[in-house]
């Protein structure tokens, strides 16, 4: 377990600037989630830390020592790839044992067997251990590749959307499992995801990347409640934050161009009349689609709401987020 520091890291692939001057400290024992759309530089960050690619500029330090000259093996990191990560010519058992048999670890065989059995138990694949890796379903493959990281005790776990190909139930279970590993072993994680629940529940810190730049780094609550821009605000929140022109409601501060409204910023009773266009019952919550003049917005209400499409609701913003013309927070 270790602290990982990235300083002024830049990397481009041909004409594409994948990372630009990123500085970030992953504290020892932290669970850092990277958010951002495809192409924002999340995977590049993982690959640079793992040593699969060399940065054009900047430094990477693990436990204070620069690792730029180290091979991936010497860096002692574990990585779960988004896809393709199982060795297809090996069985599940051999796949899990592969890192432990490496010259870097060279664990005795009896300990390997024990370790593999433990991890297989955690991932609920003990009955699949002697299958060929190619004979597994997508979800099972992904569990094995997570397992191949978990058998080790690396300085940092790098995970690239490890749960994205799993079904909802397994994803929820593994989320809890990873969080447990993080809490019990004090392991350090750098984790890429698109999934808001993963980010909010697992992360101790969230970094938001935009076109290779780190635009905000903080706790999940900070990222959610105090986003620095409309871009960051749109990364988190189910349903998405509603972004309307500032003049949609009275009381806009000067130079505000947009108002950002999360469901909790929208209060009913008094204010502007909005028409309900659609009611979506999701079980534990109900989404209301509203139209306010020319604008449409989405908010939440109680699960058993009697509201129907066509009815009118008076809404007013409370402590909304204001953004200027560039999308920066005011």
């Amino acid at each position: 377990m270790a602290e990982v520091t990235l300083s002024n890291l830049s990397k481009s692939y041909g004409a594409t600037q994948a990372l630009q001057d990123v500085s970030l400290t992953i504290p020892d024992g932290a669970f850092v989630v990277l958010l951002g759309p495809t192409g924002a530089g999340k995977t590049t960050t993982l690959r640079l830390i793992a040593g699969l690619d060399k940065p054009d500029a900047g430094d990477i330090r693990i436990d204070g020592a620069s690792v730029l000259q180290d091979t991936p093996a010497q860096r002692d990191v574990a990585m779960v790839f988004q896809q393709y990560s199982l060795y297809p010519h090996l069985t599940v058992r051999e796949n899990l044992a592969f890192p432990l048999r490496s010259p870097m670890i060279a664990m005795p065989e009896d300990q390997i067997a024990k370790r593999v059995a433990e991890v297989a138990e955690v991932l609920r694949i003990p009955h699949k251990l002697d299958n060929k890796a190619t004979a597994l379903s997508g979800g099972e493959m992904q569990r094995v590749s997570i397992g191949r990281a978990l058998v080790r005790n690396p300085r940092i776990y790098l995970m690239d959307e490890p749960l994205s190909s799993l079904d909802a139930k397994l994803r929820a279970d593994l989320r809890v499992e990873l969080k447990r590993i993080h809490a019990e072993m004090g392991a350090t994680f750098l984790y890429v995801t698109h999934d808001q629940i993963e980010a909010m529940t697992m992360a101790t810190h969230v970094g938001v990347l935009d076109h290779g730049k780190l635009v905000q780094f903080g706790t999940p609550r900070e990222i959610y409640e105090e986003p620095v821009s409309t871009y960051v605000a749109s990364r988190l929140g189910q349903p998405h934050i509603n972004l309307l022109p500032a003049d949609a409601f009275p009381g806009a501060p000067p130079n505000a161009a947009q108002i950002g409204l999360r469901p909790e910023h929208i209060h009913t009773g008094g204010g502007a009349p909005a028409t309900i266009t659609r009611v979506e019952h999701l079980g534990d919550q109900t989404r209301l689609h509203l139209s306010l003049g020319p604008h449409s917005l989405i908010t939440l209400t109680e699960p058993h709401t009697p509201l129907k499409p066509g009815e009118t609701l008076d809404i007013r913003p409370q402590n909304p987020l204001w953004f200027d013309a560039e999308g920066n927070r005011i």
Partner: protein
Amino acid sequence: MSAYSVTEPSKASKWVAAALVVLYTIITLLPLVWIISTSFKSGPDSISYPPKVLFEPALEGYVNLFTTRTRIAAEDFAALPPPETWYDQIVRDQGMVIAGQSRFGERFLNSVIIGFGSTFLSIFLGTLAAYAFSRFKVPLKDDLLFFILSTRMMPPIAVAIPIYLMYRELGLSDTHLGMILLYTAVNISLAVWLLKGFIDEIPREYEEAALIDGYTRFQAFRKVVLPQAATGIASTAIFCLIFAWNEYAFAVLLTSGNAQTAPPFIPTIIGVGGQDWPAVAAGATLFLLPVMIFTILLRKHLLRGITFGAVRK
């Protein structure tokens, strides 16, 4: 009741396909049957007209292939003690006695050494080169690949005279090493290109995972890339072996007493009073076997290999 299906061929079309395959098999196997049956015929049966389909099998061809024989005067022949072995008997039946061993065994061994030696060398060098071209930034990569391919564009025999002269100067004429190097030079372009295709199909993520799992680049190559390239290596090896094994023109030109391979040797098997067809056929039959065995051993890789490019990602 069978439902009409768009993808499943109808029964009739399956029968037609099967009949065509059987017909094609018969056409391709006919020369083989001819050669193999001739190898088991007696001299007169082998040249009888119309050809005999049913005949009394004889080992004359094989005995003649491995021996040299001579005719002796009638009174000396009559005075000989009874033959000691079955092959003595077969030669006596032709009115001759065994004078010694033929050079077929030696030539056959030369073919094995040169054929498998050059195949091994082509695959060894080809795999390393293909891996480098596939995975690393090689300066002038495209030009180098084209250069390697261009060595294939001219029929090799077009450069026979310069090679002959160079080999004479270097002392490589009529040596095993010389023939191995020559066949490797011809095969290596095929090997690099085919193997590069196979290795390109193996996702890099496997090696990257192995690098992170604590292995060096070379260990990752050996433990992850090689097992997955096995199919490609096997089929490339078969192509290389078939070329080196069957090559005739250079073998005639560059080998004689020492490193001569079987192809130039077989047609020189001349019996007393004309071509000894059963012996030639026996030589050809034995010559077919190694490639056949090699191909059968590697057949499970071959089917996937010849459909390369269609590998599931």
